[in-house]
C-alpha cells in the first residue's frame, strides 16, 4: 500500500480523497493555488504545497508544478480527483516516469477512452451496442451523406476529441448536413486540435444510465450497479440517483453486464464509469469516464462500498476485495449538486459564504469543502457541495432530500438549490418521465 498520496485537486473531491487515505493509513499531501491557501483540503491534509497562482493553467493544470510538489514531498502516488488533470494521459505518464503510481487507469487506457472513436471501437469489439452511424471518422461530405442515408436522420455530428457537450451539432436532414459538415470539422480542429468528426443517430428523448465499474490487475472485472443521470441542464448533470428507476430487470442486467464485459475485454484497472443512452428497451454505449466521478456517492450509499478506497487499493495492486455476487444494492440514493450560480439565469455566483448550515440526520450526507467565511473562487468549477440522501425507497429518498434542502442554509452567494427543489417536486421527476433534454425544455417553457 502507498505511504503518501499527493492529491492533485481541490474542493470537495480533495477532501473526499483525504478521508479515504486517512482510513487506509496513508499520509496525504495537498497542493493549492495561492488563492486557496485557506481551503479545507490544505488544512486537513498532512502536508501542503503551494504550486502556483490562481489561474488553473499555472497551478492545478500545471504538470511540472504538480510533479515537482510530489517530488519534494516524496509522495509515492498521485490521485487526480476529477476534472483538472484527471483524464490527461501525459500527466499519468509523467507520474509514472517519476517513479510514482497514478491512481487511475494506465496512460494507454486514458488515451483509448479519451478519444471517442477508439472508445467506440473498444466497445464494438466487446460486443456492446452502439448507436447507428459511422464506424470511424467521416472524411468527406460524400461519405457523410452515405452514412447518414443508412443510419437515418436525425443525426448527431460530433468531434472525435470533443466532450462535455461541446463540439456537436444536430443534423435533421441532408441539406443541413451539407451546410454544417465542414464547419463542424473546422471548429473541432480549432477547439480540440483534431478535425476528426463522426456521425451517430440522435435519440430524441433518451435517458442517461451509467454503470460504475472496477477492474484489478489480475483480470477481475465487476460492475457496482448503475446510476441514472438524465437530469441534466445544458449537458451538465444536476440530479443523480442509484439505482436507475423504472428499468425492466432484463434491461438493467443487460446494461450492467455490458459494462463489466468492456472492463474485462480491455483489461481496465481501478474504477471507472461506462455511460449509456437508454430509449425504450434499447441501450447504446456512449463513453467511458476513466476516473472517479462527481456522482460516485449515490453508488456508495446503496452498495456500502467506498469507491475511493477501492480505487486506491486497486491502483496499489490489490486484488478485487469482493466478487460480483457480493455487490448488492440496498434502498435508493439521490444526489443534488449544489452549484454557486443563479438558479434561473444560470450565471456563476462566486463570493464569500456569509452564513452556512448543512443539513443532517439519518441517511443524509454532505460532501463539501465550504463553510461560513469560505470564499467561492471565480477561477474554478462552481460546485460547492453535494447533498446525498439514502432511504429504503425512491419516494422516501425524495421526501428526505426535500427536507434536507429546506434545512440547507447558504448565504452570501446564490445556489442552484431552488431550481432542484422545483424539479424534485415535479411529477415528471417523481413518475420517471424525464430524459436528458427535459430540464432545458422545462426551463424554456417555464412562465416568467
Amino acid at each position, binding site marked *: 500500500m502507498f505511504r503518501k498520496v499527493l492529491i492533485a485537486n481541490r474542493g470537495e473531491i480533495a477532501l473526499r480523497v483525504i478521508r479515504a487515505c486517512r482510513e487506509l493509513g496513508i499520509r496525504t499531501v495537498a497542493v*493549492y493555488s*495561492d488563492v486557496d*491557501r*485557506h481551503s479545507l483540503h*490544505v488544512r486537513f491534509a498532512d502536508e*501542503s*504545497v*503551494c*504550486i*502556483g*497562482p490562481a489561474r488553473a493553467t499555472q*497551478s492545478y493544470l500545471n504538470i*511540472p*508544478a504538480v*510533479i*515537482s*510538489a510530489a*517530488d*519534494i*514531498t516524496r509522495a509515492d502516488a498521485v490521485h487526480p480527483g476529477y476534472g483538472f488533470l484527471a483524464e490527461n494521459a501525459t500527466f499519468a505518464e*509523467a507520474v509514472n516516469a*517519476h517513479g510514482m503510481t497514478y491512481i487511475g487507469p494506465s496512460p494507454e487506457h486514458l488515451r483509448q477512452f479519451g478519444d471517442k472513436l477508439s472508445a467506440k471501437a473498444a466497445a464494438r469489439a466487446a460486443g456492446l451496442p452502439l448507436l447507428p452511424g459511422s464506424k470511424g471518422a467521416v472524411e468527406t461530405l460524400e461519405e457523410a451523406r452515405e452514412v447518414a442515408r443508412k443510419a437515418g436522420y436525425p443525426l448527431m455530428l460530433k468531434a472525435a476529441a470533443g466532450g462535455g457537450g461541446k463540439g456537436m451539432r444536430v443534423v435533421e436532414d441532408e441539406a443541413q448536413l451539407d451546410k454544417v459538415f465542414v464547419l463542424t470539422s473546422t471548429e473541432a480542429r480549432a477547439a480540440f486540435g483534431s478535425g476528426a468528426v463522426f456521425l451517430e443517430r440522435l435519440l430524441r428523448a433518451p435517458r442517461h444510465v451509467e454503470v460504475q465499474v472496477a477492474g484489478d490487475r489480475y483480470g477481475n472485472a465487476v460492475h457496482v450497479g448503475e446510476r441514472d443521470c438524465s437530469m441534466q441542464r445544458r449537458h451538465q448533470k444536476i440530479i443523480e440517483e442509484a439505482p436507475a428507476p423504472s428499468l425492466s430487470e432484463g434491461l438493467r442486467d443487460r446494461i450492467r453486464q455490458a459494462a463489466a464485459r468492456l472492463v474485462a475485454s480491455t483489461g481496465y484497472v481501478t474504477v471507472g464509469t461506462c455511460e449509456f443512452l437508454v430509449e425504450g428497451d434499447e441501450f447504446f454505449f456512449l463513453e467511458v469516464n476513466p476516473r472517479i466521478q462527481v456522482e460516485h456517492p449515490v453508488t456508495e450509499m446503496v452498495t456500502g462500498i467506498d469507491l475511493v478506497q477501492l480505487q486506491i487499493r486497486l491502483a496499489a495492486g490489490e486484488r478485487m476485495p469482493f466478487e460480483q455476487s457480493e455487490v448488492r444494492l440496498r434502498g435508493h440514493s439521490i444526489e443534488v449538486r449544489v452549484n454557486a450560480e443563479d438558479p434561473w439565469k444560470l450565471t456563476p455566483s462566486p463570493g464569500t459564504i456569509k452564513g452556512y448550515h448543512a443539513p443532517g440526520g439519518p441517511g443524509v450526507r454532505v460532501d463539501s469543502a465550504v463553510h461560513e467565511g469560505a470564499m467561492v473562487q471565480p477561477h474554478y468549477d462552481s460546485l460547492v457541495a453535494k447533498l446525498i440522501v439514502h432511504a429504503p425507497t425512491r419516494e422516501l429518498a425524495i421526501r428526505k432530500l426535500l427536507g434536507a434542502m429546506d434545512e440547507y442554509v447558504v448565504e452570501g452567494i446564490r445556489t442552484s438549490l431552488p431550481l432542484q427543489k422545483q424539479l424534485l417536486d415535479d411529477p415528471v421527476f417523481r413518475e420517471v418521465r424525464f430524459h436528458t433534454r427535459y430540464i432545458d425544455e422545462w426551463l424554456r417553457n417555464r412562465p416568467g
Partner: protein
Amino acid sequence: MDRKELDALLKLLRRHGVAEFTLEEKDVSVSVSFLGAGTVPVVAAAPLAAPPVAPSAAPASAPAPRPAGDSRAVRAPIVGTFYRSPAPDAPPYVNVGDRVRKGQVVCIVEAMKLMNQIESDVDGVVLEILVENGAPVQFGQELFRLSPG
C-alpha cells in the same frame, strides 16, 4: 558587442576557469555558463514571470512574512528544490551583502529535473537568505530579503 568581442570574452572566461558569467550593460546582456566535470547542467529555461509581490499573501505554510520595512523579497516563481549555486562545488550565486541587480540570477529552483535559473526582479543588497540550500520551496515562498537600492 560583436562576434569577435564575444569570442575574446569566452576565451578570457575559459582561461580563468569561470563557471558562470553575467554581463549587463545598457544595450547588451550576456549570460554564460560552462558545463564541465563536476558541474550540474543548467537548463537556461526562461524563468517564469515572478508573481506580483504581495507581502500579505504569503502561503500558509511558507515562512511568515516579516515586517516589510524598507526591505523587499525575491520569491520562488515555481515549486521545487532550492539551490544556491549552479553545481554542488560551485560558489553560490549570491551571498549576504552582495549587490544584486534586477534580472541577475540569484539561485536555482529544480522542478522535474530541470534546473530553472531564478532572477531577481528587483535591485538591492542581499540582507538575508531565507532558505537552506537543497530545501524544498513552494510557489510564492520568500527566498531572499534585499534592501532597496
